[in-house]
Structure formats: structure tokens, C-alpha cells
């Protein structure tokens, strides 16, 4: 919409490639990934156009044979030959069509994986934006719904339009032998019918928004009723009636809408039908007249009549497929818009370095890690067995990134923010690392740097940090406290380099973070976030999050996290599957064990800075205490930042920061802050009052 308004900056969330451009896009896709498809498509077009042509000659040849027995033998063989050809062509046509189906269908997977991997390459902040999430959803839907996917619509639409046009032309040539005037009239009628059908399609397209909305509501209500997670409440609060009454209303609405839609559609269909009856009657009259005039014989009568009545079929086909192309093209534009979003620039080594999955610094030597002399192995798992890139991955890379120039221009601007490209390496940093926030401002409502439109994320709007200054010293343990919405999680994301500040700088040992490749900055952190990421991979992969892992270190990490014993008992190896997605006997963990598993991941990476974003909310006190002890033990010599609602954790830290409204309201040790008697003391008091009272009682007891 916006882009249509004119010269304003075009939103990167919308693309307006034309239908031919989008057809070209998918055929390039086929050429790159399954070149044989182009031959199959060509074969289908040729054969498909010829099938109906042969079909109308069959009765003519049969009648010619019967009507002129004198020329019997020749006509007999002519009919036989045509019949045989028809059998062959039909067989070929169906085979080719079926192959096409399987090829297109099998390749949707590639489109989907390209989309997904792209979502891992755009800046994380962008993936949180409402528009980007919506765009992802639409792009995904344009791929996953089989015969409603954009790939289906464009593949089938294109080929069917070409075939129908060729058939149309072939039939016209048959008829033009009879009479150019009649052919012209028929063409005119075809145009009228085309216009009518096109109007019908446009009319139905108008309903698409309503359809989508009502469909979404129906799906939501139905799925809610079947949602196992909500099942307890549905039963105890008797919510079924509520949801059902809502659903019934939606169905009633849907019925009304469908009726309205079909009633109007029927008008178009009936007019078209009447025109066809009119045409057929005229055709009979004209052809009978021609026979009586002696211009044509019975065989030709049948041939021409077949050609005339076949006409409308092709017109219908063209219309239907043009409609399909329009919709496919529209859906593909979402997909292309997503694939063309600016990508995160990971630094001088850029994507390659990142994606080779260079292992995180090994526990064996922090020294080795600081000198940065690790072997740069190919992280591709296939490399283990085949020693080369997976077939097709290269083409995917090129294919998904598309045209490179405009995006790299974008992201370059965004990332370097005026400075040059990263030229330092984290190997230059001495451990432990000191982090400084210098005059940092960050706001969720600041739009994507690459485009000019506003973020509509109201829930997270507003400036979180404003000229924020803070230094976390090397080796310091810092606890971050504050009420919900104080900005703690935002702070963590800025800290790890997942967010980039809009103003100000973040320094690592006094050096601007942007001077380091971002991929290397990420390597500085072992972080545990609130949302557990426990993918259904092999246990070794899940611990290391690398395609290749060090067996010894995996077990050491699992051991330090307190999982080794139970894993060994249960016969779990690093080659076991996590979760039951693939193997029924896959590893499943309880809530507490999951936290330990995430701890193992942080231990395995053993990065110089540890960040914990409230990882123990659902744990019982003893488990919580144990986990904290483990983290503490392991964070020796490291810089560490903890977030927790439970003030207990703050007691471990060298310094407590109380965040409120994006500012450090209070800071100091626990004792200092208690002594100060302000906000922190108040919060602590609230939580500890009961415990303290008991402490006094306890003293009294003893």
C-alpha cells in the first residue's frame, strides 16, 4: 500500500515484482536446483498442446473413413496411426505431468529451508519486529500449503497458460480454414468471456481478506478447544460453552459470507454459460447451413464443431490460470521481501567465518584462545564423512542471498555506523574482559535502520535506555535487579551484541565493540536466556550447538552440570537424540534437568563472559540453590552478569545494579544498598520479611 503512494522510501517489507519477474524467479530456481525440470516443462507444453488437437481429429477421421469407403485402406491406416499416436501422447502427457508434480512438490522444502535460514541471518532485533514476524508468517504460508503454495500456483499457472494459448491458436488455425469471419467472431466472444471471468476473479479476490480473517478466527477457536495445555482450565472453568458459542457464531458468519460470495459468483458463471449455449446454437446453425451449401462434409462438420466448442475450455483455462498466477505472484512477493531483508554483518570474516562454525574457545586453553591460533575446520558435518560441501548448498547460499549489492550496502551502513569495517580480533583482548556502556541509548520504537517506517510494536515501544553509562569490570560478578519491565532483558541483549545501541558505544577493554567482527563478539559470551532452546538434535550437538563436538568436553560439561551420572545410568550417549521427534527412546528431561542441560551448554562453550537471564524461575529452592552454586563455581575468573527476580542470587555478586526505567537507580554491594535503605532495601525487605522473622524465631529457639 505504502509503496504505491509514490516517491516515499519503499518499505523493505513489501515487494512489487511483476508476474513475469516472479515467473522468471521460480524458473531460475528450477534451473539452478533441478535443471531437468525445464525439459519436463517443455515436454509438457508441447505434448499438452497437441493432445486436444489430436482429439478433435479422431472423430473426423473415423467419419471420413465411413463416409468414403472407396478410399478405405488409406483412411483406415490414417485413423489407426492417429489412434496410436493419441495413445502415446496421452501416456507421455500424464507421465510428464506427474513428474512435474513430484519435482515441484519435492522442492518446496528448499524454499522453506532458505526462508528459515534467512531468519537466522537477519539482525535479531529485526526478527522481533511485528512486521517482520508477520512477513515471515506470510512467506511461510506461501510455501507450506502444497497446492496453494506460490510455487504450485506459478509453476502450474505458467505452464497451463502457455499450453492453453497454444491450443487456442491451433484451434483458431483449424477454424480459419473454414471461415476467417467466424474465427474472428469466436475470438471476440472469447474476449467477452475472458473479461467476464476476469471480473469474477477480481471479485473473488476482494473476499480474500474477509476469508483469511474468518478462517483465522475459526482456526483459533477450534485449536483452543483442542489445546491440551488449556484442557485443565477448559474443564474446570466450563469454558467449552464459551468457546463453542463463539465458534458457532463464526460458522454462521462464514456461511453468510460463503453464500454471498457464491451467489455473486454464480451470476458470472450463468452469464458465461448462456453465452456458451448461444454460441453452440449458432455454431450448429452455421455448420448445418455450410453442409447444406455443400461447402463441408460430415467429417469436417464434426471437426469444426469440436473446435468451436473446445474454444471456451481454453479461454476458461487461461482465465483460471491467470488468476492463479496473480495470487501466486502476490504470495511470492512476501517471500522475496523476506529473503531480501538486510542481513546481520558478522564482521570481516563475515558469513563464511561464522558459518564454518569455528569452535568456541576450548576449555583446554584460554591462552590458546586469546592467541587466536585455532585450526579453522569446516563445520559442515558432512565434512566428517565426505570431506566436501553438501551438494546444492552452494547454490542455496547464492540463491537465498539473491542480489547482493543493495543489501550489503544497507547492512554495511547499519553496522559500521560511520566507522570502518571491523579490523580487530578478540584475540587481542586480555582476559577477563571489561565491558563499558558509554552514553548508550536504545529505543524499541526506533525503526529498522535500513528502512524508513515505524515499528508498530506498541507493547515494547518507548525508549528503554537514554545516555546510559556503566562499566562492568573484568572478572566482576554483577547482579541485575528491578521490577518487570525495568529493562533488564534489554540490557542483556545489548551486552551480548544481540542488539546494537542507537547512540553511544559499548567498549570491550576500552575498544569500541564495532571494531571486532560481530561473530567474534558472540564468541565472548556464554549466555542462558529465559526461553529454553532444546532442539531435537543429537545430545552432543545440543550441548555444543556445533555440528562437530569434542566428546571429552561434552562429558566434562555434562558432568560439571550434574547430569553425567543420570545420563550414564539411562544409557544416554552423545549420539542419542534429544526429544522424541526422531527416536521414541530419545532423551526427555524434567524441568530441573533442562536447566542443568543449558548450564552444560554454557560450560562447554566456556566463554570469558557469563550471562544468565533468570534461568531458575521454575525450580524448587534446593535445585535453584544448586544451580546457582554451579554457576558461581564456574564463573571464577570470568566476568558474570546475573538477572533474577529472587534477590537471593544478588548475594553472590560483587555489585548489585538496580535498574529502573532504563537507569541504574542504585548500585553497590548488598550491604551498601541495604544500608542506604531505599529502593533495593525495600524490595529486599518485601521478600525477606518472612524469612527474617523466622530467623529471629530460630535464634529464639536455639
Amino acid at each position: 500500500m505504502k509503496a504505491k503512494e509514490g516517491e516515499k522510501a519503499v518499505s523493505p517489507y513489501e515487494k512489487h515484482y511483476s508476474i513475469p519477474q516472479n515467473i522468471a524467479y521460480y524458473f531460475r530456481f528450477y534451473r539452478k536446483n533441478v535443471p531437468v525440470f525445464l525439459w519436463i516443462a517443455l515436454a509438457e507444453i508441447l505434448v499438452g498442446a497437441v493432445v486436444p488437437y489430436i482429439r478433435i481429429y479422431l472423430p473426423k477421421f473415423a467419419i471420413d473413413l465411413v463416409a468414403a469407403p472407396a478410399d478405405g485402406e488409406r483412411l483406415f491406416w490414417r485413423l489407426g496411426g492417429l489412434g496410436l499416436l493419441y495413445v502415446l501422447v496421452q501416456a507421455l502427457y500424464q507421465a510428464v505431468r506427474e513428474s512435474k508434480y513430484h519435482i515441484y512438490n519435492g522442492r518446496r522444502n528448499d524454499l522453506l529451508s532458505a526462508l528459515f535460514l534467512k531468519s537466522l541471518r537477519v539482525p535479531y532485533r529485526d526478527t522481533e519486529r511485528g512486521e517482520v514476524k508477520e512477513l515471515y508468517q506470510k512467506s511461510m504460508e506461501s510455501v507450506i500449503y502444497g497446492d496453494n503454495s506460490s510455487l504450485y500456483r506459478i509453476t502450474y499457472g505458467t505452464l497451463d497458460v502457455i499450453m492453453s494459448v497454444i491450443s487456442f491458436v491451433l484451434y483458431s488455425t483449424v477454424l480459419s480454414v473454414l471461415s476467417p469471419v467466424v474465427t474472428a467472431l469466436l475470438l471476440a466472444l472469447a474476449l467477452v468471456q475472458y473479461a467476464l471471468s476476469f471480473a469474477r476473479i477480481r471479485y473473488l479476490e476482494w473476499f480474500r481478506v474477509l476469508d483469511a480473517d474468518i478462517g483465522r478466527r475459526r482456526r483459533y477457536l477450534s485449536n483452543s478447544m483442542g489445546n491440551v495445555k488449556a484442557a485443565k482450565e477448559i474443564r474446570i472453568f466450563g469454558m467449552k460453552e464459551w468457546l463453542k458459542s463463539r465458534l458457532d457464531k463464526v460458522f454462521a458468519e462464514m456461511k453468510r459470507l460463503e453464500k454471498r460470495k457464491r451467489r455473486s459468483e454464480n451470476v458470472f458463471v450463468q452469464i458465461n454459460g448462456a453465452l456458451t449455449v448461444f454460441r453452440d446454437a449458432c455454431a450448429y446453425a452455421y455448420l448445418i447451413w455450410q453442409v447444406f451449401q455443400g461447402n463441408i462434409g460430415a467429417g469436417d462438420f464434426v471437426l469444426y464443431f469440436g473446435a468451436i466448442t473446445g474454444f471456451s475450455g481454453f479461454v476458461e483455462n487461461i482465465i483460471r490460470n491467470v488468476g492463479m498466477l496473480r495470487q501466486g505472484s502476490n504470495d511470492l512477493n512476501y517471500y522475496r521481501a523476506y529473503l531480501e531483508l538486510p542481513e546481520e554483518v558478522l564482521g570481516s570474516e563475515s558469513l563464511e567465518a561464522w558459518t564454518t562454525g569455528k569452535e568456541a574457545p576450548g576449555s583446554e586453553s584460554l591462552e590458546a584462545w586469546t592467541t587466536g591460533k585455532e585450526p579453522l575446520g569446516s563445520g559442515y558435518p558432512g565434512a566428517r564423512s565426505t570431506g566436501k560441501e553438501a551438494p546444492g548448498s552452494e547454490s542455496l547460499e547464492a540463491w537465498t542471498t539473491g542480489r547482493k549489492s543493495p543489501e550489503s550496502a544497507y547492512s554495511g551502513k547499519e553496522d559500521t555506523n560511520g566507522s570502518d569495517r571491523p579490523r580487530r580480533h578478540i584475540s587481542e583482548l586480555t582476559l577477563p574482559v571489561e565491558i563499558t556502556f558509554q552514553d548508550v541509548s536504545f529505543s524499541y520504537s526506533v525503526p529498522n535502520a535500513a528502512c524508513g517506517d515505524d515499528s508498530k510494536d506498541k507493547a515494547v515501544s518507548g525508549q528503554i535506555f537514554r545516555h546510559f553509562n556503566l562499566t562492568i569490570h573484568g572478572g566482576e560478578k554483577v547482579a541485575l535487579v528491578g521490577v518487570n519491565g525495568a529493562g533488564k532483558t534489554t540490557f542483556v541483549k545489548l551486552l551480548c551484541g544481540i542488539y546494537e545501541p542507537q547512540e553511544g558505544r559499548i567498549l570491550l577493554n576500552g575498544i569500541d565493540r564495532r571494531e571486532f567482527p560481530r561473530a567474534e563478539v558472540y564468541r565472548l559470551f556464554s549466555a542462558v536466556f529465559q526461553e529454553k532452546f532444546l532442539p531435537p538434535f543429537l545430545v552432543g550437538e545440543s550441548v555444543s550447538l556445533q555440528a562437530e563436538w569434542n566428546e571429552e568436553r561434552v562429558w566434562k560439561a555434562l558432568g560439571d552440570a550434574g547430569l553425567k551420572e543420570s545420563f550414564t545410568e539411562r544409557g544416554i550417549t552423545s549420539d542419542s537424540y534429544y526429544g522424541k521427534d526422531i527416536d521414541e527412546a530419545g532423551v526427555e528431561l524434567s524441568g530441573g534437568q533442562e536447566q542443568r542441560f543449558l548450564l552444560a551448554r554454557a560450560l562447554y562453550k566456556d566463554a570469558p563472559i557469563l550471562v544468565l537471564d533468570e534461568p531458575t524461575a521454575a525450580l524448587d529452592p534446593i535445585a535453584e540453590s544448586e544451580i546457582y552454586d554451579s554457576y558461581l563455581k564456574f564463573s571464577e575468573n570470568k566476568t558474570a552478569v546475573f538477572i533474577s527476580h529472587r534477590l537471593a542470587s544478588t548475594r553472590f555478586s560483587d555489585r548489585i545494579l538496580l535498574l529502573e526505567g532504563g537507569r541504574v537507580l542504585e548500585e553497590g554491594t548488598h550491604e551498601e544498598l541495604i544500608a542506604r535503605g531505599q529502593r533495593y532495601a525495600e524490595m529486599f525487605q518485601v521478600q525477606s520479611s518472612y524469612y527474617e522473622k523466622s530467623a529471629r524465631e530460630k535464634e529464639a529457639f536455639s
Partner: protein
Amino acid sequence: MIQESELLKNLPFRQNLNHIRTTLGMIRRMDRGYWPCQAVYCLLQTGAEYGALILSAYVVNGLTAGVDFGGLMRAAVLVCILLGVLKAVSYALKSSMNIRKDLMARRYDSMQKEKLAELDFALLDSPRLREMQELIQRNNNWGSGIYTVFWYMEPMITAVLRLVGAVAAGGTVFRYLGGGNTLPSVCVMLTLAVFFLLGMKVVQHYQKIGLYFMYHFPSLEEKKRFTSHTWAFATLGRYQYQNGKDVRIYGAYDLMKHWTHDKAQEKEYRDYYVKRPVVGAVGEWAARGAMGGLGTAGAYFLVAWLALRGGIPVGTVILFAGCLANLLESGVSLVLDFQELALACRKQAGILELLSLSNEMYRGSLPMEKRSDGQYTIEFSNVSFRYPGSENYALRHFSLKLNVGEKLAIVGRNGSGKTTMIKLLCRLYDPDEGEILVNGVDIRKFRQEEYVRLFSVVFQDFQLFSLMLAENVASSAEFEGERAERCLKDSGFGDRLEKLKEEGEGIRSYLYKDYTDAGVEISGGEAQKIAIARAVYKEAPFVLLDEPTAALDPLAEAEIYANFDKIAGEKTAVYISHRLSSCRFCKKIAVFDGGRLVQLGSHEELLAEEDGIYAKLWNAQAQYYQTV
């Protein structure tokens, strides 16, 4: 339950027929008028087809036999108009059928979900049902679910009608075939028959291969080799965008690429998923195409050959050839489409089984005594319980009595049976041993829907719906606005409510954006407050709170605690929390361990047992708060 591999077995015709009958019956129950509509539509279409065929035969015969121009013309135009009317009616029918079909397909989907909402929770949460649902989903991965049934029914009905039409309109062709010199006729017919039968064999062979690879149930070994997580991840089923933080920080891009892209590019993967099914399917369709071509071309050839031997007028050649071609094509269609239809129906069997599932829990008929004074006592008497499919007891020989107005806190380690006790109390499950008594009566004897009215619950994993705020609080489409507002304020949602009022919709605001884009986003803490308000609104005599403050910050938590009395009032309340400080609201604290009740008493009493679990739990937290 039908296993996937069984789909491939060649079922006896009768059994196939049974599946088809059940499925069609289900569709009839959803919409009585649909099949009659479909039949009339097919009849009109077939009628129009034969009408056109007879007309062209008549016209050609007339032309060659020299009927008068005017008569021929009138007949042609008249029949054209007649056929036009037939078609107009059939278009209208089709249009109505399309509406009915779309609505039915959606109703069908919704019916399954509604059924899930009706099942006993224990059944819903059982491995059996999960298996059933997984199978349903797998069976509907290929094809278009119930639409497939519609797709194959239409050609089946049409084929039958065309067969009838072919015999009625062109049956005399057989007289010609049988007449005259019999030997060549028999030879020609035999040759065609042999071709036809051979062709069918080939088609069926490939059909089987195609279906096998499409629906074959992979072994564990195959799953390991050929699983790519592209769909699970990309459709956000097994991955959330928030996981992107870990992917970036841990440099997991390569690993993600391996599982979502590279694996699916390997040659053996492609052979397995694409090449093998294609061989069968392409073979089937090539053979089908050849059969279709043979039917049409062969019919013209045969009839022309007959006509040459004399006795058949030129126009009738068209009629006979058309009928013969229809005869063959319909035969092919009946045989092949029957297989597909039977398969499509067999794939519905899982859903039909789900829909006909009946609850197994005993349902008593005793009315629940309604007491305005809330005088109820609850007693767990020697209760033991194992989750279905689990070997370990979640609760073991568990006994506990809860008196009117009492506030009970339950503490214990993760997995000690706290939430299980709540679930048993609400009769989401029945105990394996022992019984739960309310006012001395086994709860199984009460009417279930009346019994659950006794409880207001806030579950650990509470869920809100993306509908109106007030509806969520009232758990109903009808709500008392003021009461809902009061409850929201009591649970600490007041500030946000004021803001929502300023924004316009107030308690009529929709939550989240799943249902409508106009919905408002709320934070986890706010959601928790709404869940608490919902429990308050219900005004049930028992209040059960399972970790109701886990997502709240200390101040918000304190606020809830402060309102605890308002929430629980004079009611009997059970409170589960990992934050032991909350226990201090309750006079009585029950400590669970390994499914047993190990300690019961007041805070002071329990703390006095220094080796007890309570003391350990308490100290694990309290140590941080006590001035050293």
C-alpha cells in the same frame, strides 16, 4: 486403530466398502443434502454429455440422409437450449455444493477439536490419544483430507452414470459387434480386452508402488537417516524466534543449516523421498494415460471398422464411439478411483475413531450439595496414582484431610506430586487406589460438571484465550462487567485496566493478536494477574493456587500476597509455591516428597524438625535473607 502400514495392505473389497460407507455416512450426518445434490449434479452433467452426443449424431445422420434444413435447424437449436438449461441448473448446484463442501471440511476439523474438549482429561492426556492424533496427522499429510473423499466420489458417481448412459445410448453397438461374420469381431474384441486387462494390471502395479512409498511407515533407521527438521523448525513448531539469540551467541548457524537444509540435499535423502515414489506414481499415470488414450482411440477405430462392414449410419459412428469410449474410460475410472477413494476413506478412520471415542471415567449422578456457607471438607484417603504409561507413582499412599476455611500450603521439590494432587482433587484423573472424599462421599459419585464448580484454580501453566478480557475473567461469553473489573483490581491488574479504558475498549479489549489484530499485548505478569482474577470471579468454595506468582517480580508478588486474604477469603485454599515465604500465610503446611506426604504442621513446627525436608528447603532460600 489403523496403523499407517496397514493402509498399504490390499484390503478385501468388502472391508474397503465398509470404510467408504462409514466415511460417507459421516459426511451425510454433517449435511444431509449433500449426497443427493452431488448425485443430481452428476446426473445432469452426464445427461448433458449424452444429450450433446446424441444431438451431434442426429445432426450428422440428418445431414447425410438429407433431412430438411429447417427441421434439422430447429432440432439443433432446441436441444442446445435444453442442454443449456441442464447446465445452468448444474452450475447452480455446483455452487451450492462448493459452499457445503467448504463448510463441511471446516466443520469436520472443528468437530475433532470440539471432541477433544469433551474428552476426559485423563484420556486426552493419555499416550493412546497422542498416538491417535499423531497418526491422524500423518495420514493427512498427503492428499487433502476429507476433500480427497469428495474428489474421488464425483468421478465414481459419474463413472457409474456414464456406464449406464453408454449401455442405454450405445448398447446396440454390441448387436453389431456380435452380428455378421463373428470370427473377426471376436478377435477384435478379444484383442481389445487383453490390452485392456494387461493395461489395468500395469496401472495397478504402479499404483501400489506409488502408494507404498507415499504412505510407508519409516523404520527408526530410516527416520534417523532421513529426518530433516525443515518443517518442524520453519513452521515455528519446534523453534521460536527467541531461540535466535542462542543460535547467534553459540554460533549454531551451521548446525541449524545441517538439520534444515543440508540433510535434505543429500542424494540418498532425495532418492528416498522423491525418486522412489516418483517411479511408482509416474508409471501409474503413464499407464493410465495410455489406457485412456486406448479407450478413446480404440473405440473410434472399432466403430469405424464396424461401420465399414455396413449397417451403421455415419452419425451413429460418433454416438457409438462416444459410448464405447465412455464405457472403457468409466471402467478404468471405477477400478482405479475406487482404490483411491477407499484409501482416502481409510485415512479418515483415525478421525472417525476419535469422534466416536467415549469417555471411560465413571460418572456419578449424585447432585452436588449446594451450600452457601461453603461447608465442605475434603479428604484424601490412602490415594495412590501413576500417570498413564509411567512406571513411577506420582502419589503413593497419600492421605490428607482439609477442613472448612483452612489454608493449606504445599511445598516440596520438583516432581514430588504437588500438582498431581491438585489434578486428582479436580478429578482430572481418578486415583488408582484409595479414594477422595468430599463431605464423606467419594467424589466419583458426584455429577462431574457440578463437582468441578467447587474449584477455582490457577495452574502453573495457566492459559488465557485471545478473546475479550472480560470473557477470560468470566470464562464465558456472558459476563458481569462490574464484577469482572472488581476481580481484576483485586488481583492487581487495576493500573493496566485503567489504561485499557483510556484506550477505549476496557474490559472488552481482546487479548493478544491471535484472534484479531485489534487485540492488546500483555506481559507475562499481567497474564498471571488475569488468571488469578478468573479464579476470583468464579467464587468457588475451594481455591487452588499452583505457583501463581512465578512470573512476577518481587513487588508484584508481594501485592498478590497482600491480597491473598481477599482472594481466598473465608474459603478453603490450597497454595503451592516454591517461594516458601508464601507458606507463612497458611496455618498448615504439607511437605511432599517422592509422592508422599512427609511432613504436616505449622511453619514453626516443621522448622523445628531440623532433619526434615522443610527445613532444608527453607534454609536453601532463607540463608540469603538472613543477616549473617
